[in-house]
């Protein structure tokens, strides 16, 4: 891209700057963990396995990118996993009732329903100015409850799902499953959106300094609403992906997954206060979690230790991240001659 090249040209320090950034530190960490696992279990770095890990992390990538938007605007969306579950159950029900419908209506419905659920959050946060953490804590409970109401708690199993419904995301395309391609597209789209569109930039503006955004003619509430709607749409789409991937839909689908999504964002350096965060960081954060999650069973860590190790690794990662994030700031004194 011309602009990007131009920028790099005008700022010779850009590469060095990136190397010193937290994204680079995180990338190094991801590589280190991968290498560490590979030493114990070399097959982990076999291309086919890496493809598996990526594919397994795809849903986390997508959700984390949606969540990132919300966090960038200074809000938080705790309802993503509940939205995902509700949408997933609804499309699974649709599929079991009308298996001949095919994948396209399913995808459209999942995005539409997810968007609608996101819109509920958006309106409450925007129009009533309620704190997002409270709103989404509320809708999280409500959405899960609604699943119970429509299913009576019953499960929808793979034998009730059509082959088309199940096979779509698994279909290989140039060596990668469709699901992985969707994640890659999502990452690229989000990167372009945040860097090159006015709305994308205004998301940073709204979260960076709320009152200043108002002074600049940007409605921070509206930006939050947009973020919630996008996050909802992504969650809805992932609802389909999730039930298709695991071939089952029930009330507790993705229970507690919202915290992993947020963890991916914060490990990726998205500031919980808003206004700071990069797509690269989030992708690395999600990848980091995906690798840890996939590697622990592989290297034969006792199942009882897995949670403790995952917790420790997350904690260490966020501590390192917090240290890396401390900016040097300005200095008044000139460098002293040695």
């Amino acid at each position, binding site marked *: 891209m011309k602009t990007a090249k131009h920028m790099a040209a005008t700022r010779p320090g850009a590469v060095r700057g990136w190397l010193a950034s937290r994204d680079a530190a995180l990338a190094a960490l991801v590589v280190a963990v991968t290498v560490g696992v590979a030493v114990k279990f070399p097959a982990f770095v076999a291309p086919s396995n890496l493809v598996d890990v990526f594919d*397994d992390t795809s849903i986390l990538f997508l959700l984390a990118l949606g969540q990132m938007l919300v966090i960038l605007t200074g809000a938080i969306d705790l309802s993503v996993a509940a939205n995902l579950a509700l949408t997933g159950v609804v499309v699974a029900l649709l599929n079991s009732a009308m298996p001949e419908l095919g994948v396209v209506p399913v995808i459209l419905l999942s995005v539409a329903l997810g968007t609608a659920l996101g819109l509920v959050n958006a309106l409450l946060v925007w129009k009533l100015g309620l704190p997002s953490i409270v709103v989404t804590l509320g809708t999280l409970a409500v959405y899960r409850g609604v699943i119970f109401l429509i299913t*009576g*708690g019953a*499960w929808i199993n*793979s034998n009730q799902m059509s082959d088309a419904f199940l096979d779509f995301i698994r279909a290989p395309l140039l060596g990668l499953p469709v699901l992985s391609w969707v994640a890659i597209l999502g990452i690229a789209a989000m990167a372009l959106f945040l860097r090159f569109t006015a709305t994308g930039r205004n998301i940073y503006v709204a979260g960076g300094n709320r009152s200043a955004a108002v002074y600049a003619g940007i409605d921070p509430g509206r930006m939050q609403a947009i973020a919630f709607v996008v996050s909802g749409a992504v969650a809805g789409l992932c609802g389909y992906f*999730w039930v298709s991937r*695991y*071939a089952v839909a029930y*009330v507790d*689908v993705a229970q507690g997954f919202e915290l992993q999504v947020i963890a991916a964002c914060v490990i990726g350096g998205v500031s919980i206060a808003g206004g700071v965060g990069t797509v690269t960081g989030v992708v690395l954060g999600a990848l980091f979690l995906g690798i840890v999650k996939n590697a622990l069973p592989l290297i034969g860590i006792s199942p009882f230790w897995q949670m403790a190790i995952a917790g420790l690794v997350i904690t260490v990662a966020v501590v390192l991240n917090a240290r890396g994030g401390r900016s040097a700031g300005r200095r008044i004194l000139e460098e002293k001659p040695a």
Partner: protein
Amino acid sequence: ADIRVGLVPKSLGNGFFDAAYKGAQEAAKEIGGVEVIYTGPTTTTAEGQIETINALIAQKVDAIAISANDPDALVPALKKAMQRGIKVVSWDSGVAVDGREVHLNPSSNELIGEMCVQLAADVAGSGESEVAILSATPTSTNQNIWIGEMKKVLPKFPNLKLVATVYGDDLADKSYRETQALLKQYPNLKVIIAPTSVGIVAAAKAVEDAGLSGKVLVTGLGLPSELAGHVMKGTVKSFAIWNPIDLGYAATYLAVDLVKGDKGGPDAKLPIGRLGTVSFDKEGAGAMAKPFVYDKSNVEEFAKIF
């Protein structure tokens, strides 16, 4: 007036327990003057069941029949129920002796353990075969007992080599991922035994997704409705399960027996309607029947029921 029986599943919405509820209703109708209150938590936690138990105590039900999420944690709450004159039966997944009068095992643990290994041996063939177990949560009582029984029986089948026991926590995604890891870690794996209805489905799915259908065989305990597809694809050749309808039927029958004045406790013998009688051991536990094997020949028929 009516005898009110609280039937408490591990969690609501599980097809297995819904089938048990059907059986309970059947028993209620058969006996007459019995009302079944089917209620429970939506997640498989002991705390959730304690809230349910408290609500049932408050309603002064006559009996509680419960499939426990935790054999010990429920004891104080159920003891309180018994102090207030409520008869307590545990079924399927038991409660420690102090917390109930009788416990109804769907089958005996020995029989289940043996059955699982037998199923594995049947599909493994004659050569040396690697076997792995995919369980539910590491704290699940019946899972652990069955795994123990399996390990006791295994030496009788020298060609089966148990290489790993992993835990899918009865979560579809975790079970799926654990199975994936098993497949990678043990390229020669032949059989996966999943004595859990969530785990067996997830394992079958993972095996199919890895393109190993027919090469790696999945067996264990599961529901016909959930497994019919996998049986047809050949990922699962056969599996076993007792009839949950009968289980709910028998548990309700027992609860009513106790309310009507029959004594539970060691060495008792109680009638369970069309299923005959159960005899209880020193610990007050009794077995209903032995597990039933399902395969290509009968699975579709049962899939319509549960």
